[in-house]
């Protein structure tokens, strides 16, 4: 019985508990443990990914209860891929948080970070719908804490809205789960797949509602129009490393959609025809458009990035909502890419904010950036990736998506929106970039911001006046972290071929869920030993549970003892 599968959940949880219990006053120890934990997770994730890379699906029955009665974790290609993605991102973000001193600007950064990881990883691994809800809540509440880490007026206000909006989302999630349980009597995803398929098509109303309610829940997480409103402010105001970590959170929503709408509600399922397959793609395209509008219209660099996140989610989901293996594979490739690109950009923006003094994040004429060359270079590369210009992964992902869109009746729409969208992105990013990095060199009147209008979140570490490069007084760790992310992007580009092969296999596995379902439902759980007490009557309910119905199923269960 190997327990690797549970490690990604248990390790961060235990670690966080220890951090709180023992070393909450010693930042150094916290940093050491936290980083060690993150790296360990990466190692485990690599192991799991490798294990799943030949198509094996691994099952972990918690409490040794057989599915669907207990909760199971399932590691197939998709889950392990997302886990790996998360654990590749986490150490770099953590590195940045330490290097920039963000983690010391408030209490409990590291425990919250670990809990956040636990939530995300659990959400990717669990095979149970309600358990997914629990992990959503874990990652959400941890994200609330991280979001308002170190306080600040703006951040608190934005944070409050973020929490309230997600509270509504959680409520919706519960409504969805209730409906699902009421319609199918189960919560296990694999079991759901089986039961939904059996449902009588002439009474499809309930299950259809359940399907779309659940989709709405994931759409909120994935920031699909018109449920994206929570994103811009919270991402723009979150501490940089947190915003970078959030890059994976939108992907959780995308994961949910991919998982549920290939496994439980597959596109060819008759009972849910004419639902998401009708309006998900248009919604995704609108999201892309809106994101690009925001990029063009933003007056703050951090909001610009936030909107580009919305745009990238739109692009990603327009690939998903084609619901073909090619589409999913393309979406996954783009998901990996946009996670790293977004994270890199948010971290860069933080560095830029610090170095621009009063101008902060505002797209106005500020002072030249210290050590501009390095930062400008990295921003240029990251921006190329984000806007999907060649030669980086953004472009390859876009090509994949355009190629996959061929299967959709809306193919021309997809092409038009995606291509013109990237043009807008190019304009937006080039305006911002040239303003921040070039115009600063212009002599003459600089419309710099007067300090009281500049929000207080800025300038916590900026040392105005110091004009030495980042290698000077500035910590080098942040640069390494950002460099690492960019390196990942380049690697993703260079090894696009192999990666794409893996993703194609992943998508293929999603579209042939039979082995998944079979493994989950047929693996025996703990043997119920005969009445441990006295040997009165047998509680042989095996087989009966399948047949019997709520009312009589239990007639023989209550013995006295």
């Amino acid at each position, binding site marked *: 019985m190997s327990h690797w599968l549970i490690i990604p959940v248990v390790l961060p949880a235990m670690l966080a508990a220890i951090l709180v219990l023992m070393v909450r006053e010693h930042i150094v120890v916290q940093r050491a443990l936290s980083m060690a934990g993150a790296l360990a997770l990466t190692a485990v994730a690599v192991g799991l990914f490798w294990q799943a890379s030949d198509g094996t699906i691994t099952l972990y029955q*918690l409490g040794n209860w057989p599915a669907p009665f207990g909760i199971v974790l399932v590691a197939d290609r998709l889950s392990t891929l997302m886990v790996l993605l998360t654990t590749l991102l986490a150490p770099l973000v953590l590195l940045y948080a330490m290097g920039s001193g963000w983690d010391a600007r408030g209490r409990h950064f590291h425990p*919250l970070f670990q809990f956040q990881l636990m939530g995300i990883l659990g959400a990717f691994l669990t095979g149970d719908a309600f358990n997914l809800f629990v992990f959503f809540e874990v990652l959400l509440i941890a994200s609330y804490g991280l979001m308002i880490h170190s*306080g600040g007026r703006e951040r608190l206000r934005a944070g409050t809205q973020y929490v309230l909006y997600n509270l509504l989302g959680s409520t919706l999630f519960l409504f969805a789960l209730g409906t699902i349980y009421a319609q199918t009597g189960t919560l296990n995803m694999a079991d759901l797949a089986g039961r939904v398929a059996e449902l009588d098509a002439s009474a*499809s109303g309930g299950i259809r509602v359940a399907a779309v309610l659940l989709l709405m829940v994931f759409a909120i997480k994935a920031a699909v129009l018109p449920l994206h409103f929570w994103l811009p402010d919270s991402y723009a105001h979150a501490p940089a490393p947190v915003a970078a970590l959030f890059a994976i959170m939108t992907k959780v929503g995308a994961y949910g959609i991919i998982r549920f709408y290939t496994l439980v509600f597959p596109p060819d399922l008759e009972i849910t025809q004419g639902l998401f397959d009708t309006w998900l793609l248009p919604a995704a395209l609108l999201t892309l458009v809106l994101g690009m509008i925001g990029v063009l219209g933003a007056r703050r660099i951090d909001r610009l990035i936030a909107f580009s996140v919305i745009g990238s989610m739109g692009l990603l989901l327009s690939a998903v909502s084609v619901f073909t293996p090619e589409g999913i594979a393309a979406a996954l490739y783009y998901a990996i890419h946009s996670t790293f690109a977004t994270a890199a950009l948010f971290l860069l923006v933080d560095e830029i904010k610090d170095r621009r003094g009063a101008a902060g994040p505002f797209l106005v004429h500020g002072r030249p950036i210290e050590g501009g060359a390095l930062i400008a270079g990295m921003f240029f590369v990251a921006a190329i990736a984000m806007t999907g210009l*060649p030669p980086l992964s953004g472009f390859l992902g876009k090509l994949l998506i355009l190629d996959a869109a061929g299967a959709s009746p809306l193919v021309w729409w997809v092409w038009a929106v995606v291509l013109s969208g990237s043009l807008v992105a190019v*304009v937006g990013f080039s305006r911002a970039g040239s303003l921040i990095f070039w115009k600063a060199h212009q002599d003459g009147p600089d419309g710099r911001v007067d300090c009281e209008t500049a929000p207080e979140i800025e300038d916590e570490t900026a040392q105005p006046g110091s004009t030495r490069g980042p290698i000077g007084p500035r910590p080098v760790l942040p640069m390494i972290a950002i460099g690492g992310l960019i390196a990942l992007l380049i690697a993703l580009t260079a090894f696009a071929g192999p990666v794409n092969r893996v993703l194609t296999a992943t998508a293929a596995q999603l579209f042939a869920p039979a082995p998944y379902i079979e493994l989950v439902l047929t693996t025996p759980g703990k043997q119920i030993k005969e009445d441990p007490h006295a040997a009165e009557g047998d*509680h042989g309910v095996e087989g009966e549970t399948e047949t019997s119905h709520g009312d009589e199923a239990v007639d023989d269960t209550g013995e006295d003892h």
Partner: protein
Amino acid sequence: MGAKIQRHVWSPPSAFAIVRAMSLFIIVLLPFLGALLPGLMIRAGRQACFTATFLVSALAAVGLLTHLPAVLRGETVSARLDWMPGLGLNVNLFLDPLGFMFAALILGVGLLIIAYARHYLSRDDNMGEFFSYLLLFQGAMVGIVLSDNILLLLIFWELTSLSSFLLIGFWKHLPEGRQGARMALTVTGMGGLALIGGMLMLGQIVGSYDLSVILEQRDVVQASPLYVPALLLILLGCFTKSAQFPFHFWLPHAMAAPTPVSAYLHSATMVKAGLFLMARLWPVLSGTPEWVVIVSSAGLITMVLGAVIALFKHDLKALLAFSTVSHLGLITFLLGTGTAFGAMAAVFHILNHASFKAALFMTAGIVDHEAHTRDMRRLGGLRHLMPISFAIATLAALSMAGIPLLNGFLSKEMMLEEATHTTLFGSPMLVTVVATLGALFSTAYSFRLIAHTFFGPKRDDYPAHPHDPNPGMWLPPALLIIPVVGIGLFPALAEPFVKLVTGAVIGGAAEMPDAHLKIWHGLTLPLAMSAIAVIGGALLLAGFAPLSRIWEAARRPEAKHIFDRLIDLCVGGARRVARGLHDGAFTRYAAIMVLTVVAVGAHAWFSGATGTEIRRPLLPVTPIAVAAWAMLIAAAGFLIAAHRNRLAVLILMGIIGLMVSVGFNHFSAPDLALTQISVEVVTIILLLLALNFLPNRTPVESGAARRTRDAIIAGLGGVAATALTWTILSTEFPIAPISDYHLANSYKGGGGDNVVNVILVDFRGFDTFGEIIVLGIAALVIYALTEALLSGPVRRRLLNRGHEEPQAGDAHPLMMVVLTRVMMPVILMVGVYIFLRGHNSPGGGFVAGLVVAIAVVTQYMASGFAWAARRQRYPYHGIIGAGVLVAGLTGIGAWLAGQPFLTSAFGYFRIPPMEEFELATAMGFDLGVFLAVVGAVMLSLESFSRLGYRAGTETSDHAMDIDPSRGEELAPAVGAGKESN
């Protein structure tokens, strides 16, 4: 799709060819790798930096030359490397005469430019940066002309846009530079994206992205319905890149770049990329009426327009820029005619133009460099001051004017020849006339360039004292003059190569024309036309002054302004939309969310089939239920009505919570009832503490309209919820729920009669694990935030905030203190009891935790924060951490038994005389829950009170304010209300 077709149109790569092919990669890679060098070498000085750059290009050029023999033999060298075979995007390179010509141009001119730039750049320009960008561009350019895979070509294509963006904006301090750079990027970027679309379509038609395959499929492509859209998109890409009308406007603004860049990118190479692509795809795309009409007319218009504008530009570089536009138009027109002869003329003119135009740009740069101005109105009479530059410029300009014995003449003759054979829009004469007009103007501006710069009287008001520069600057242009004259005198020399390249262009699509490159074709119509052009040009120049005045007077649309206006409009609009939608109005966000969910849900419901569900017998209505229901409805109604009075709201919330728990109990769910009620209490306490800081009333803000709107939305939500609940309650499970199993195995498998509890701690213990972690996190977040607040500016505000309402006389009333002291142990006992019985009857760790927490809270309430805090031994952090640890370790314990996480075991023990009792590992887990809950609840409540406490309001250290044991001293009750709401 593509890339499966490995079969090759040209020679099968023999081992020999493979060796060569390897170096194709190297040729492309060299500049990219080399781009790193200058940045480093600059530390070793400018000379080192220059040498490194020069060597890199030279090496690449040599690598290219090694292929010359093969190319001359008509072989095609190729190199293939899989990148994304799944997509059909592979690093496939091939070198044919066309590619060779362009690659040679790029690298050859590149060498000269690098040498020239070495002396052109001033000391305060960052040479390392400049050369890095230049090599980057060079690599991208070579990549374009060597690509066999059109997706790969796209990548290089966009790379040239990006690197030119960097090069144009090289002088960061110049607004013109920045704007020119962005304009170039926007326009060419747009073209690039269009090109992506076009290329993808082309690939979809042919089923492969490999040029070598595509070029064979002329008929397939031209028959396809996608042909026209693909053609349009591809041409959009080519026209933007090659500055063809109506996209010609970006090129002159790109001239803000340092002269070497203008000479290299914007005359010799990048702007030719569009031409290259048209030539490259000539075999598949050309020949159709669409092609002829669009391409040749665009070319003609550009040719004339560019020439006319060029004539009236006073800035040398601007003049050259527009003349470049005009010549590109000329070549486009030639390609557009779709005849083999046209293709041949185009190829020939590409060569010639590159030579004389680059030379002209460099001399313009020299003049600028020496005279410190490029304005022809301030120049003139330089022929004595700068004889060498004068000679170079004159030869080049005359060639551009198409004067015999220079190479420009030959290709222009061929163009005119072609023009006479071309019919557009039904009229055979149109093209002839327009072409002559274009030629006429181009002679005019060429003459003007010479006359107004070098002839005329020597002036004494040059901004600087002009003289010939050092050879480093004039040698490169001088070298370029050699082919200008050489080919001009002995065209036959160039013929074989030109034909070779032409062959590559037309591929199998047409017959090689038997025409020959000659100076003298006899007295032909073209000769007459160029005679007209030369004379007319001279006349135009003679009458330049008045013409110029008219031109200046005339109102012309300024492309840049239009472009800027357009961009600003878009930005403004985008700003309004983004801002209008995301103005932070949470209430609107929420409203939209509710409406969306309801709408989508309704759509799903009504588009589905219903009615055949198994109906469920309804339960009889009991009076108690009705009573509870009525109370709940009433409470909710009052709450809405009186929601501005926040205390009242809390009371009503309490009632609602109570009713809910009554309901749970009524429907045989005592666990729920218990939990609900205890959570209720704690929540209310929490909100009370909060309310102690928040204002007590909600002001009236929203008008009636707004309230009606909200009411309608709320109503919709309510109706939807009712409908959904009703549907569920009135119908039967379609399939037996899994909970039957839980009922059946709770006792045998989980060792508990309380199925709910067994589910919580055993069947679905993992959920509970997550749940207590959520609780713990909540406490941590609250604590962290409190810290942040208390250390921040908030502290001050807390200190000097007044009290809204009078405080109670004695904040810690005697009775209450005594009562709570007495109750404390009782409540604790209850807590323990509830905990222990949890497994077999309603109760459990969670409820127990809450009860104990409440017990402690009452102490706070009774005796104030300070008193209680001092008597609290363990930090709540610890308790939470311990809770999570205990729960986790109980789970991990199962590993020792080789069981999965959270596997439970239980047994029954008997210790006489006590009666038999049960121990289950699940209880350990439940203990964890208990601890986490206590810790979490207490930590949050504590944090809340700390806000008040730390705020400096002194609180009593005594248990109670009136204490018999003490004298009559009254503890100051000021603000003690903080803790005792």
